[in-house]
């Protein structure tokens, strides 16, 4: 732990504290966990290397999450769109999922996670994928197509305020703002 602290550097540590919702301990822990994922020779240059998505997904906190791939894609700054994360991306992820992050930022990232085709709105396809993720892909927990159709029309009726057939970010945030438990459930703690 001591070595990692020195490796991270005091300046960048305070900078990360300034720019994220994480505390000092959380950043150090994140650093430790992240370096464990890296190869031995990559450890020296922290921000230059990317850890591929497959390795990130071996973290027990993300391993069983049905949205794990989406989470990686949303927080990745990789040009190849392969979902690989740098350390800073990783900190961004933890910051958005931390205890003290605001509702606004959490809902923003939640929206992007649910927006499977990255087109900026949740349309029927997105909603269907979302519901499938929520209920699981196995046959006994998958909703029938009839139920799915009814469910999606119900959702749109409830939250699609401008009636354009999709849920956009502000409509999404409107729904989120009325469910106070969201902040406590949208949380990943290392």
């Amino acid at each position: 732990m001591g070595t990692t602290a020195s490796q991270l550097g005091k300046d960048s540590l305070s900078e990360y504290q300034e720019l994220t919702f994480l505390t000092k301990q959380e950043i150090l822990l994140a650093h430790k966990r992240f370096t464990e994922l890296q190869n031995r020779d990559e450890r020296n240059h922290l921000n230059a290397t990317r850890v591929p998505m497959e390795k990130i997904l071996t973290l027990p906190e993300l391993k069983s999450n049905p949205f794990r791939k989406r989470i990686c894609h949303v927080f990745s700054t990789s040009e190849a769109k392969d979902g690989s994360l740098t350390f800073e991306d990783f900190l961004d992820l933890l910051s958005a999922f931390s205890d003290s992050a605001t509702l606004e930022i959490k809902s923003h990232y939640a929206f992007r996670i649910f927006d499977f085709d990255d087109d900026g709105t949740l349309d029927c396809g997105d909603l269907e994928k979302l519901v499938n993720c929520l209920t699981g892909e196995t046959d006994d927990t998958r909703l029938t197509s009839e139920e799915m159709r009814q469910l999606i029309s119900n959702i749109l009726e409830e939250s699609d305020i401008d009636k354009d057939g999709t849920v956009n970010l502000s409509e999404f945030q409107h729904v989120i703002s009325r469910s106070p438990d969201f902040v406590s459930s949208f949380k990943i703690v290392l």
Partner: protein
Amino acid sequence: MASGQQRQGSGNGYLTDQESLRLRRVSSRMSSPIYHDVNRSTSSAEEDDKGGSELNRELRSTPWHMAQKRTKWLEQQKQVRAQFSGGSWKHKRTKYVRQFKSNVRELLYFFSLWGKSLQKIGGNFGGGVQSYFFFLRFLVVLNFVSFLLIGGFVLIPSIVFRSEGSNLARNTGEEECLKYNPNPEGLVVFYEFFLHLLSGTGFMEYSYMFYGYYNNTMVEDRSLSYNIPLAYLFTAVFYFAFCLICIIVRMGKAARVAVTTGGSDVSNYSRIVFTGWDYGCLGSKATNLKQRNIYYRLQVDLEEERLKMHAASLTLCNKVTLYSLRVLMFFVAVGLIVATFFAIATATTFSQEQNSNVQGMLALFYEYLPSIVITAGNFLVPLLCDQLALIEKYSPSATVVLALLRAVILRLVSLAILLYTLWGQITCHGNTYYRNITESNTTDCDLCQYNHSAYPCWETNVGQEMYKLTLFDLLVNIAILVLVEFPRRMVVDNWSCKLSQWVGRQEFGVPSNVLGLVYGQTVVWTGALFCPLLPLINTVKFVIIFYCKKITLFNNCRPALRTFRSTTSTFFFLAATMNILPKKSWHVRNKDNVARVRRDEAQAAEEEREAKRRVERAEQEARTEYLRRKARAALQSAGVKGDDDGEQSGASLEHLNLFPLEDSSEKKGNEEYLREKKEEKEKQERAIGLLVSLGPQPGSEVTPWYMKSSAEQEEERKEKEKRKGISEEEKEKKDRRLKDSLDPLKDMKKAMGVYERREQKKKEKRNKEEKKSTGESSIERLRAERLQREVEERRRAQAVLDQRSGKRKGAHREMDERERPYNSAFFPELARKRQRRDRESWRDEILKS
């Protein structure tokens, strides 16, 4: 995103190369058009100058990537440094305050009770279970502070003064009633020591634990005077007030959240789908359970909707059966609860009677009989009520609420029954049976106002009762953990027979557990006056329960199938009343109201149309009447022959009434007049503020502007403009005509016109003369113009040819500095892209021309 980022980039020409690269990468990646506005709005919000700390907080909560945030941050730092050059102490202070705050927060986090455990619980089992433990922690702290209060003001002074041996305060009342000497025995057998510890008798009774031990000590020195009875009383009052305030503060927080978030019934599906997932779930097992849970909820809700439709189509007979069944079940449930109360009362009386007759273990059993009966009742009756709920067939949400309501009533009222029975015993009231058998007791009661021979210090007895309840609750909790929960888990895990699989692992039911806590706390509040150390005992008890529950949670439990909303539950249980908040709709603009307004408007429009139709018909009739009369007059003048016929037809017209109803409605007063009058009255009322209608005014737009899409708004605006344009044009024309006819300026102009015409004629004459002299020059001017035009055309043609042959490749079009959205040196890629676009647009322009 991209443009905002570019603008930002152009501001800092001093960015290091690496960062600019990062920026480019980010901006090229995030080219989706939607996340655009959020970002721009936040960045524009940041451009407003604010304090340093606020800026950073803003920055932290912007959905940017680290690189972007860092760039912005560095920029801000520079700005701040420039602003506070010379190290203004204000800036320093804010910085230090911020640092201090974060340090304190970290320290508090470090010291906060069970912070890590709570986080872990929240991570593994979700917010609902976590809220239970938060509540438990709150109660522990509350009890501990209460103990400090009591200890500081009552316990320590009594100990000090007792050792000093000060004088007793003067006594009031009969000497006989003040006798209190609870068995100051010598040696006791070990097991009896244990029994005393459990039942609060023997050595426990005569200790600081109970009310009876405290003396009426009053210290009066020159400098100091301390009245322990008074302190005791005031501390108790203050203790209750303190607890009340704590709870109200906590409740207020929860209530505020509940109120601001509105009802829970609205947007139920969206809520499940959008916020249903708990990202803290660890392990594939928990994930599967959670998925199953969500699936179950969705299916139940969809099913419920279908059931509602089904219920609407029920026949009368079915309904009557269902409702009668419900009423019956209600009475059965009430009967069960009342039976429990009766059992508690009987047990209390019995145990108090048998108290002095037996010794040893049997005495202990009798001592604990009320506690046992209460616990058993609280365990059994909810189980039976659950079975009743199956028959009642309420909707799932109603079932949960009903079950909780019954449980709350049962728990709290059973405690009240216990107290009432004790009260009856102590004061010899309400227990005629007892008085009839032993006559002597009446005299005792008459003497001291209470049964002195049986209860030498009745306050201690009540305290003992509460002490036993608290202790028994703890023992039951531990016993259930050791004897039920662990074996159950082992059986379920190791044996795979059908029964054990059906039973399954235990669920951690938040409602029932919180109810247990509330019950324990209520017992403490009841007994705190008579047993001052009860808060301390309760603190210890809750700490033990915390660890027990944590162990059982991590080892024995699976996440509950039915989740419980954490925020509303806090409020719910603290209030210990029914959950009224989710039932009430707090916003006026809900679906029902909107529908009602629309319906009313549609009705009004319909009525208006009806009135119009009637007016038209009236006019038509009048016209036909007029024409008919005219025709009749013509006929009369033409010949006398048709006279009879005309009269007959008129009579028949009067008698033949095809629409009697409508006619009568038409004849009923002057409706238009009445309506006008009513409208006028309403208008007046509205003006003086008597009549206030919520929502949009009738006749105004149905959906407010913020709920409309931009396209809709645009359309509406256009339409309005069109309408307005037409009407305004007409109005203007009319207006102008009127004005023109009245304008005195017109006359003047007329006069002036005459004069000007004369002048012009003169000028023309002069011009003609001039033209004759300069005829050559005008031709020359035309020729020059032609040449210029030709040159221009040639140049354009040349440009097109150059474009074709690719000669102009190297030539750069000089751009206005302001047109550039970025510094091309730092964004070569973007610059190239932009250039290409510019070039294309330019070429199009040329081709067009």
